[in-house]
């Protein structure tokens, strides 16, 4: 298992390399640049800016400069300055040597912040939102799917699947405002906008203070974001469980005289969850990276908004950084799923 994980982490770097190259190429292939404004800047200034950010160099050189800054750790005997160029996602000290790693560079659009600042302040909110949406999706989806399968073709089945169809067919952009209108404006149960946590974060993404206000803010957005995913989980769980209960080993269990309840809990559920677990990895990544609409509707200062704005602004470092981080998420989420998978299914061994 240990060797498998190491192999996968090496693979992660290969993925990041490919993703960064493609993103870099596409980004520069799109017409327009970061300093094209409606009111054109004087050519002199643009030239200076481009020089300052090395945009006047050949593309290949720019690419390797960027990749080098992100992936190659820098060491120093003295403390790094608080200069924007000297920022990095990871800064620490080994013995008397200062190390920094993953310098995503300064943002072109918000001139006073680095990409790492944005990651530190906005990304944790999107991760929290995505994680909670995933939990909502699992907590709603799995029980619905299980009930639907166990009571196949009964009113429970139809009701569960109606909820699921509702979930996939109503987009956040409608569901969100409706929820705000009902639960925030009319009933006043939850605040309409905002998010209840502030940096710094534990482990880079967990809120340090969990107060009442945090929970109040964290009810509606995860539900709005997670409902569609819960519908997917519900349908998959149902299909998978219906498949499993027709397997020979379920008949064997019944022939041994097991109670129906035991047949379901001990023999059917674990098997039926295997395919469901498989989609949780990509689903988590999709939820974390797909928060734009939810964040806009609920006025949450997360990463989604920055990402979309960075693309219209041609804010190259933010685009690159965000996509690389999202790729890391996807690979790590899938790795976690694979490990879970091996735990659930003894036939799978990774060595």
């Amino acid at each position, binding site marked *: 298992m240990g060797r498998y994980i190491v192999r996968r982490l090496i693979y992660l770097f290969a993925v990041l390399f490919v993703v960064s190259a493609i993103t870099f190429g596409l980004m520069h292939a799109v017409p327009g640049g970061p300093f094209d404004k409606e009111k054109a800047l004087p050519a002199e200034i643009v030239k200076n800016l481009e020089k300052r950010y090395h945009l006047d160099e050949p593309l290949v050189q720019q690419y390797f400069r960027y990749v080098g800054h992100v992936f190659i750790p820098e060491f120093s005997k003295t403390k790094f300055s608080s200069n924007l160029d000297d920022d990095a996602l990871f800064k620490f000290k080994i013995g008397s040597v200062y190390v920094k790693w993953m310098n995503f560079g300064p943002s072109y659009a918000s001139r006073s912040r680095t990409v790492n600042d944005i990651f530190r302040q906005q990304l944790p909110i999107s991760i929290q939102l995505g994680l909670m949406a995933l939990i909502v999706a699992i907590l709603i989806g799995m029980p619905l799917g299980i009930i639907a399968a166990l009571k196949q073709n009964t009113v429970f089945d139809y009701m569960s699947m109606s909820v699921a169809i509702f979930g996939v067919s109503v987009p956040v952009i409608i569901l969100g405002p409706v929820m705000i209108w009902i639960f925030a404006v009319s009933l006043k149960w939850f605040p309409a906008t905002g998010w209840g946590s502030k940096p710094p974060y534990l482990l880079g993404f967990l809120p340090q203070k969990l107060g009442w206000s945090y929970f109040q803010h964290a009810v509606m957005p995860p539900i709005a974001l997670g409902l569609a995913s819960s519908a997917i989980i519900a349908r998959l769980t149902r299909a998978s469980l219906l498949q499993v209960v*027709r*397997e*020979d*080993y379920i*008949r*064997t*269990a*019944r*022939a*041994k*005289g*097991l*109670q129906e309840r*035991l047949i379901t809990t*001990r*023999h059917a559920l*674990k*098997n039926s969850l295997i395919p469901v677990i498989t989609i949780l990895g990509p689903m988590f990544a999709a939820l974390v990276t797909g928060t734009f609409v939810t964040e806009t509707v609920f006025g949450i200062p997360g990463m989604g908004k920055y990402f979309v704005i960075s693309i219209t602004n041609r804010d190259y470092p933010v685009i690159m950084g965000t996509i690389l981080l999202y790729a890391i998420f996807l690979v790590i989420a899938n790795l976690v799923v694979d490990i879970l998978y091996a735990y*659930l*299914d*003894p*036939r799978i061994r990774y060595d």
Partner: protein
Amino acid sequence: MADLLTVQDLETRFRTREGMVHAVNGISFDLKEGETLGIVGESGCGKSVSVLSLLRLIPTPPGKVVAGTASYQGKDLLQMTDEEIRQVRGAQISMVFQDPMTSFNPVLTIGQQVAEPLEIHQGYSRAMAYDRAAEMLTMVGIPRAKERLNDYPHQFSGGMRQRVMIAMALICTPQILIADEPTTALDVTIQAQIVELAKRLQDELGMAIIWITHDLGIIAGLADRVNVMYGGYIIEKAPVKELYANPQHPYTIGLLASLPRVDESGRRRLASIDGLPPVLMEKPNYCPFAPRCSFAVEHCWKENPPLLQVGDRHTAACWVNPKTGGERV
């Protein structure tokens, strides 16, 4: 010997998209204490459905036992409550299935699965049930049984898995073991070992066995009596020696004539008889074998023959005496 199980007029149907499938059409048979009853017949003739019906393991819908009784210890299995039949399954009547690959739960250990019947039927603690499971595995010839309890099914070979399956079925010392083609998925040498194992366990534990197979060769060395099935009917019943020496139904004669045959791969082939197996979409008012029968006379097309007495403890569902070619009276 006393009758342990008496089945009468058992009839099971499946409602399918194409129409009603008459899988078992009113069969009757009995099973005596400690004996081995063989059920033979080609694929699709209703062997599995008839025994699954007894334990009420037919998937419902689409299947349904529409008529019949199956009396076991003075009670009708088919009329029992769900809870009563559950307490019979695995404790008093056990089953071994055909495919040892798919019949085990892949995500539970062998120990969990073999010990399970003791825990649910006899209230054993986990530890005691595991000890007993290890004994049982040793008894069916699994080496290092105690360690292997923690292994998963995929870590066993096909033959070993079938041994484990037998251990699991016998762990509560049932009175009846139903083996539904337990050797079909195994290769020939392993088949023989499983048959030997079943015989030895029967001597030691004394249960009655219903052994279902395609293969008349296996039945010869194992069964006391044989029921031959065709198209959802039992068409011949006889003690095993009598059946081999003096088959009375043309279908049985055909089956025996095509034995023993071993093909290139060394597997014993299914006996083959010209013509197609019967369609089960309707109950025929003629003999279901008549379309493939070289002895068929007019009577065979007018009336489906019931089982007729043709010898001592020997019945056959055929209007014609195949020895003479004339009709029986």
